[in-house]
């Protein structure tokens, strides 16, 4: 790492769902080629490292530069130029953050604390993709590489050490989770979709994705049922809507979303289904409005009936539980941001450390060569190799303490400041060689 690499400061310029409506955000969103061109132009204007991040909720440009204010201005100019949105229109929506604030922001974004749906999983993958693109185009350097890897680590930690991403928020995913609470192995279970409503289709899609063994689709329009089968589960059996009660006897999960004034399943028909299929549990998801399943069915033994409101209230409950984890996650982000900043501030000492190591190594090599030619020439190659190792060990151990101290002083928080610089310098040197 050269000296020039070590004095770059992290900065961020961006807009998000919190500051701008979608109409404005989409103006700043650049596709692959244009984002590459954008980063190239930014580099030519003194932005040494850059990663362009665009998702449906945000457009953010992370950068590292020796002159962060000038770099932020250049990025803002370029964004304006590429988006064709005048500064007057976007001014209030664009935010700029520097140093620790920018670092903490990226860590929050990666951990999905800044997402529209807190705890969602997509953002991490999107960040990884954007970062990979920048790495491929050689737009990153030591600072942003370290920062993004730190962000990925923090995100993983937040996901594993808190319950922020634990409970699902999507109705379809909740339905799958409920099915898993009832059945041991979904691959041995059969699902029946009654009607071709959009939400019903989505739930079936999730069930199929999570390995449901067999699928039956009962619909008025067989053509529509065939379309769903083609898209979701090619081997699905298709039956007319009137045959739904008969098909229900063989299935374990029933999703109803048919437009009907009358109940498709009444308490009596459900009782008959249970009698025919034995006392195995039956999971019913009624997402139609008006409802397709008589609510009295829920009273029957071994039947678990959920309507759209039940699923929605579980989603609300899960959201509340996620928000309860935000504080803990924010503390993790803060701690990791502090750790990154300590590393970053320690970079100032890197050139000095490299110089010291090079100098010591040069002396060691020179002295070894001199001795090899004269006083140690009787040694075999094997013995001389041992001497080389020994001197290397001595050098490494001698330098370990001073280098550790130098890194500490470099972050500015542990360094000594005083009225007598010479005395201070002597004290620091003595401390460096003190155990």
């Amino acid at each position, binding site marked *: 790492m050269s000296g020039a690499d070590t004095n770059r400061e992290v900065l961020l310029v961006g807009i998000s769902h919190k500051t701008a409506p979608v109409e404005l955000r989409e103006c700043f969103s650049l596709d692959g080629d244009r984002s590459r061109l954008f980063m190239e132009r930014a580099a030519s204007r003194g932005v040494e490292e850059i990663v362009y991040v665009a998702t449906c909720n945000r457009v953010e440009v992370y950068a590292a530069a020796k002159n962060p204010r000038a770099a932020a201005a250049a990025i803002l100019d370029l964004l304006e130029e590429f988006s064709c949105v005048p500064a007057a229109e976007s001014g209030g929506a664009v935010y700029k953050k520097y140093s620790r604030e920018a670092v903490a922001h990226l860590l929050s974004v990666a951990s999905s604390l800044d997402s529209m749906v807190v705890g969602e999983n997509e953002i991490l993958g999107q960040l990884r993709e954007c970062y990979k693109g920048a790495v491929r185009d050689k737009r990153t350097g030591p600072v942003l590489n370290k920062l993004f890897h730190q962000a990925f680590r923090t995100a993983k930690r937040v996901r594993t050490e808190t*319950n922020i991403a634990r409970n699902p928020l999507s109705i379809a995913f909740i339905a799958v989770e409920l099915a898993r609470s*009832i059945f*041991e*192995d979904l691959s041995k279970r059969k699902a029946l979709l009654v009607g071709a409503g959009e939400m019903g289709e989505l739930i079936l899609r999730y069930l199929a994705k999570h390995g449901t063994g067999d699928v039956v689709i009962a619909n008025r329009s067989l053509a529509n049922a065939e379309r769903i089968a083609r898209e979701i589960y090619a081997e699905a059996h298709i039956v007319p809507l009137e045959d739904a009660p008969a098909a229900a006897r063989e299935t374990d999960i029933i999703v109803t979303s048919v437009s009907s004034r009358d109940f498709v399943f009444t308490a009596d028909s459900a009782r008959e289904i249970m009698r025919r299929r034995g006392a195995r*549990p039956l999971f019913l998801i009624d997402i139609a409005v008006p409802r397709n399943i008589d609510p009295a069915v829920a009273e029957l033994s071994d039947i678990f009936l959920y309507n759209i409101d*039940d699923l929605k209230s579980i989603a609300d409950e899960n959201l509340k539980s996620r928000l309860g984890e935000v504080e803990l996650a924010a503390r993790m982000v803060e701690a990791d941001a502090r750790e990154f900043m300590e590393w970053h501030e320690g970079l100032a000492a890197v050139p000095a450390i490299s110089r010291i190591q090079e100098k010591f190594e040069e002396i060691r090599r020179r002295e070894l060569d001199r001795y090899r030619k004269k006083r140690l020439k009787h040694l075999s190659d094997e013995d001389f190799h041992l001497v080389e190792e020994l001197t290397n060990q001595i050098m490494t151990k001698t330098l370990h303490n001073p280098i550790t101290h130098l890194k500490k002083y470099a972050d500015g928080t542990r360094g000594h400041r005083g009225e007598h610089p010479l005395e201070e310098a002597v004290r620091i040197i003595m401390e460096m060689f003190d155990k």
Partner: protein
Amino acid sequence: MCELLFILSIVLLAAASAACVYSLHADSGWFHAHARRLFYLSAVPFLGAGLIRYYPFGLRDFINIVSTIWGHFYVLAFFLYLLLAYLDLSRWKAHWRPIGAVALPFITVVCALSLPFMGSARSIQVGFANHLLSFHVILAVVGELFFFFSFAGSLLGLYLERRLKRKTSLRLTGNLPSLETIDHFNTWSVTRAVFFLTAGLVMGIALVWINYRTLFLFSLKETMMYLSWVFIVIILLLRRDGRLGMGRVNAVNVLLFAAVIAMYVASNVIMNTGFHSFR
């Protein structure tokens, strides 16, 4: 020393129970790991107490262990330890936490209940001494313990079913095994309960035949044991049949276990007259 170690094991078991229940409630991996650690740690003073009391270990001592009232409790707790450790290593490993949340407090209660009997000289009075007696007791106890595990599973099943019916959040239900898994575990436990209890009873019948040339002495305790066996067989048949439904079978299982445990306590602790009683 023996008493001290035994009390220490009860304290550690109580801590393990609290940690296990709390880990389930709070979905905390940290508490779960500590519950497990405390459980295994509590086994050290527990085994220490047993060794101090019964060392050196001969065949005669073995019969003594199972025939004294505290020894009987000790054997019960010992096999509970063993079975819970076995679950931790078996295919039920992933479900150790919810099972432990019921089983750990149960072991704690068994051990705590046995404390007043540590100095008691009461022992099983059968009117003969035969080394097969130990096997009869152990097989019967293991059978009852498997029945206890089906009771623990049934409680979990009823709890999960209630939560699913009430349509509350997924926070707790997500930490429990599925209803079907619990049902399979219960059937697995009851099948073993029937096997071991039957083996224990057959051995008991053989002992009675060898010593009294009869199969049944018409004592209250024998009747209670056969009744327990009938209850467990009924549960097994209901589970295998499947017509009654998971929820109802679980409820029957819980009720019949309560009846069996009441008979167990009555026949082993309260009743102190007649054949096979602790006197």
